[in-house]
């Protein structure tokens, strides 16, 4: 493009492009950078001028935040719930996806159609009965409740991704495994699963992100520190940290930073998973 001389109109378009890009970067980064910088300021600095840079870099806000609220506990809860629900989700939906993609059986389309319903129902509409079901199962305020609900919430997208992942594997491969004497489960586990790695990774990334960030059902289904997750802990800070702004900013930073770091490392995988999820969903 740079080989040609630019007309004034093209120049204007180029200036607009770069301005627009700069604005998007600013919009995305400014709020986070402001929070991180504020976490190093003293309470008085925060209150006197919201835009001033911190005079010294002190980590005392972080120390106070960790002392005042059980952030690490929430963090561990989030890790347990997210890992467990992701593993459960990907495992059981790989089984279902495999069967839907590769096997013929009665009522296949009917069952698939019914399961697909989960895609069109806004989960927020189900808040009250899900609460009832969880209470009836005696799972209220347990990690198991969240694991179960998150496995379900991430079901539609995983089902779509994994079904097409298994459908893309040539049937000859499966037949060869049968001829070699591998049974149903071994064919699935040792032959098909490795071939569906890409789809499994996409489904896992999306399920993990969904569980890690989920708020509504966590709020509805838990009540104690031993089960509450990181997204909830943040709203807990507002009351807890009412006048210690430094600690509050530090707490937000602690909650946000791991996601940003993990995303920066795995951004290619995350972006391709998102794309896979949308094409198949």
């Amino acid at each position, binding site marked *: 493009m740079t080989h040609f001389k630019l007309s004034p109109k093209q120049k204007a378009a180029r200036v607009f492009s770069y301005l627009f890009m700069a604005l*998007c970067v600013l919009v995305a*980064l400014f709020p986070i950078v402001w929070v991180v910088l504020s976490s190093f300021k003293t309470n008085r600095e925060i209150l006197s001028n919201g835009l001033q840079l911190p005079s010294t870099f002190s980590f005392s806000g972080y120390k106070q935040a960790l002392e005042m609220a059980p952030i690490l506990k929430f963090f561990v809860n989030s890790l347990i719930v997210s890992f467990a629900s992701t593993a459960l989700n990907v495992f059981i939906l790989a089984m279902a996806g495999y069967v839907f993609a590769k096997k013929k059986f009665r009522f296949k389309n009917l069952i698939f159609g019914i399961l697909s319903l989960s895609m069109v129902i806004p989960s927020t509409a189900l808040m009250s009965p899900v609460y009832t079901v969880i209470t009836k199962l005696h799972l209220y305020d347990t990690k198991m409740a969240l694991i179960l609900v998150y496995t379900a919430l991430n079901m539609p997208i995983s089902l779509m991704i994994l079904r097409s992942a298994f459908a893309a594997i040539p049937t000859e491969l499966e037949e060869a495994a049968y001829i070699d004497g591998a049974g149903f489960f071994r064919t699935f586990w040792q032959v098909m699963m490795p071939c569906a790695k890409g789809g499994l990774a996409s489904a896992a990334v999306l399920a993990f992100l969904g569980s890690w960030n989920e708020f509504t059902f966590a709020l509805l289904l838990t009540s104690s520190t031993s089960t509450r997750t990181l997204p909830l802990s943040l709203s807990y800070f507002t009351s807890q940290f009412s006048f210690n702004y430094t600690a509050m900013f530090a707490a937000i930073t602690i909650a946000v930073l791991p996601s*940003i770091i993990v995303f920066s490392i795995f951004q290619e995988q995350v972006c391709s998973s998102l794309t896979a999820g949308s094409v198949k969903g």
Partner: protein
Amino acid sequence: MKQRNTGWIALFLAPTCIIFLLIFAIPLVMVFATSLFDYRLLPRTFEFIGFSNFIKLFTQDAKFLPVLKNTVVWIAIHCVLHVALGTVLAFILYKKPHGWKFVRVTYMIPNIISQSAIAMIFLNLYNAQYGALNSLLKAIGLEHLQHNWLFDTATAFPAVTMTWFIFAGYTTTLVLAQCLSTDESIIEAAKIDGATSFQIDRLVMFPLVKRMIGTTVIMAATYMLQMFSMIYITTGGGPGVSTANLPLYLYTTVKANNYGYANSIGVVIIIVGFITMTLINRLFGMNKED
């Protein structure tokens, strides 16, 4: 071999079906069924009342119609303006200007961190006393424009809208991926034919990515129909119900132990979702196979 497989197939489907039953199917039936009941705890009531809950919602409940309006307006804003914002950026980035990769990754960050964290950040940004927005207005001498953004009736709705409207990284990522996967020779051919870059965007690229834009519109509608945490954390729906939406209203009704009434709101959410999806599918011709 066939007979042996039937057992395996059933076994492979069972876990998914059980979880579907527990978290989707049974609750879905319960939502529709109990929306016809006066169903509450304390005092324990379970009485069939026909469509009374719905009649009450639409004719007597002073909160419901404003809440429904907010929800619909937010869905419309998100589906049109938010997606347009993300699409414009995608159309800039696919030409691979300097730094396009950096912009793509950076703009995605707010979509990766949790909604509740973004909400907490904005709660502080908008703070009347020390928030960045008021501090900025003060610094450039526009003190008279300062507001208590989230708690002032005049500014609460737009202020809350901004907390999700400006972060269109998801749309950008998806539309950009679609743009980049199109055959470059098509673009080259159009260039040789003398098409300007704006013409290429409008006449060549846009039709190619139209369906993906349709997908992002559906995702935007779903996102807004499920929106809860950011409102709950920033304004709690206030002042009054000026920033409340259907899920938030449903949640407060559940917390008030009024389950039958809450589930009639759930039915409305499902219907609004169904109408929205049908409209979008029609508009983008998503059901046509090609």
